[in-house]
C-alpha cells in the first residue's frame, strides 16, 4: 500500500490517544488505513449498540444492587463513554435530596423556567363551558415564596387555544419531572388522551400546573398537563432508574441485552487497538508470510502452510517466536 513501512517502538502517547478515541493513535502515527478501520469498526459497534438500546445502555451506577460492571468494559471505548461517569456525579448532585429510584415528580422549581410546552388543557370558560383539548405554546415559570413560607411557582402560558391566541396565568400546585433523568414516565395522569398508563421518554419532561384567574386571590380555572423538552446533557448517559429499566426490558427484550453486548465488545476490541498503537501489530507486517504463500498458493495444505498457520495465528503463544525466527526485521523497534 501507499503507507511507508515504519519502525515499531513503544508509543505511550499513541496508546493514550487510542484509548480516548478508537483509531486516533493510529491516525497520529499516520497509519491511516488501520486508524480509519478501528474508528469505524469500534466506534460504529459502540454507537450501534447504543442505538439498539435507545441510547440508555451506557451509564454508570455504583450503588448496590445496581452496580453497572459492564461500564468497566464500555469505558474502554474512551471519550464516547466517559460522559457517563460525570453524568452519574451530576445526577447524584441534583437528585441527592430524594432517594435513588424514587421516580416521583417534583413539586417545586429552583430556578426560572422557559420552554416550549406540548400537551393538553382543561379550561373553564367565562360562559361556563369547559374546553378540553390539545395545546402547544410557550410556558414560563418562576419560583416564588409561598404564603406559608414554602416555595411556590407562578408563571404564564402563551399559545393557541381553540383557535385563538391566549395568554393564561399559571400557579401551584405544580408537578414537574426531575431535571436530570434518563427515562421518565411522561404519560398524562389527569388529562388522559390515549389511555396509555405509561409512556417513557428521555428528552421530554413531565409538567402539570393549574391555570388561575388574575388578581390578589387567584382561583383555579383549569389544568395544563404535558411535557417540556429536557436538555441533551440532562438525559444522555444519565443513570437509568429501576422504573425506566423495567420499561426497556419489557419493550426491547433480548434487543436490550444485544445492545449491551455490542457496547461491551466495542470496549474489549479497543484493547487490541490500543495495544497495536502502543507496540505495533502482533505478527508484524504480514508480507513475510506473503512471500511464503507465493511459493505455495494453497496455504491450507502442505508444510509451508502449516508453518504459516503456526506463525500467523493458530497458536498465539508461539507466534512471536516463529515470527522472530522467520522475520526479525518486522519486530517492534526494528527498521524494515
Amino acid at each position, binding site marked *: *500500500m501507499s503507507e511507508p513501512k515504519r519502525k515499531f517502538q513503544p508509543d505511550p502517547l499513541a496508546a493514550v490517544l487510542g484509548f480516548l478515541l478508537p483509531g486516533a493513535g493510529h491516525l497520529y502515527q499516520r*497509519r491511516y*488505513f*488501520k486508524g480509519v*478501520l*478501528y474508528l469505524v*469498526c*469500534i466506534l*460504529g*459497534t459502540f454507537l*450501534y449498540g447504543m*442505538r*439498539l438500546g435507545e441510547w440508555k445502555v451506557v451509564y454508570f451506577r455504583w450503588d448496590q444492587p445496581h452496580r453497572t460492571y459492564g461500564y468497566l468494559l464500555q469505558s474502554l471505548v474512551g471519550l464516547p463513554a466517559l460522559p457517563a461517569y460525570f453524568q452519574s456525579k451530576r445526577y447524584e448532585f441534583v437528585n441527592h435530596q430524594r432517594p435513588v429510584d424514587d421516580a416521583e415528580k417534583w413539586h417545586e422549581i429552583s430556578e426560572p423556567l422557559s420552554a416550549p410546552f406540548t400537551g393538553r388543557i382543561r379550561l373553564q370558560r367565562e360562559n361556563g363551558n369547559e374546553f378540553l383539548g390539545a395545546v402547544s405554546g410557550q410556558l414560563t415559570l418562576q419560583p416564588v415564596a409561598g404564603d406559608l413560607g414554602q416555595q411556590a411557582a407562578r408563571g404564564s402560558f402563551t399559545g393557541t387555544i381553540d383557535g385563538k391566541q391566549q395568554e393564561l396565568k399559571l400557579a401551584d400546585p405544580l408537578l414537574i419531572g426531575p431535571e436530570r433523568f434518563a427515562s421518565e414516565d411522561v404519560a398524562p395522569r389527569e388529562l388522559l388522551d390515549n389511555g396509555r398508563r405509561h409512556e417513557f421518554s428521555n428528552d421530554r419532561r413531565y409538567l402539570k400546573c393549574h391555570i388561575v384567574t388574575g388578581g390578589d386571590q387567584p382561583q383555579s380555572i383549569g389544568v395544563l398537563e404535558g411535557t417540556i423538552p429536557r436538555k441533551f446533557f440532562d438525559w444522555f448517559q444519565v443513570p437509568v432508574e429501576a422504573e425506566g429499566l423495567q420499561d426497556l426490558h419489557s419493550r426491547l427484550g*433480548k*434487543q436490550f441485552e*444485544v445492545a449491551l*453486548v*455490542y457496547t461491551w*465488545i466495542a470496549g474489549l*476490541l479497543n484493547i*487490541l*487497538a490500543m*495495544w*497495536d498503537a502502543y507496540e*505495533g*501489530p*502482533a*505478527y*508484524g*507486517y*504480514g*508480507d513475510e*508470510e*506473503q512471500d511464503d504463500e507465493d511459493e505455495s498458493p494453497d496455504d491450507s495444505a502442505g508444510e509451508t502452510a502449516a508453518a504459516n498457520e503456526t506463525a*500467523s*495465528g493458530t497458536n498465539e503463544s508461539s507466534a512471536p517466536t516463529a515470527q522472530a525466527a522467520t522475520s526479525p526485521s518486522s519486530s517492534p523497534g526494528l527498521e524494515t
Partner: protein
Amino acid sequence: MWPLLAAGTNITWHLVPLAIVISLVYNASRYELPERIVRRAARLFILIMLGMGAVFSVLMVLSFAL
C-alpha cells in the same frame, strides 16, 4: 446495518455485523498490510459463521419436537 433495526427482525442477525467487526479488528491488530488484514478477516469471519452455524444446528437438532 440499519435494516436490522426494523421491527420483527430476528435478533440472531445482529451477530453478523458483530462477527465482521471482530474479524476485522482482531486481524488488524495482528498484521499491518491492508490486503493481508482483509484476507485474514474474511477467513476468520467464515470460520466464525461456520462455528456458530454448527452450534445452531446442534441446538436445533436437540430441540427438535420439543
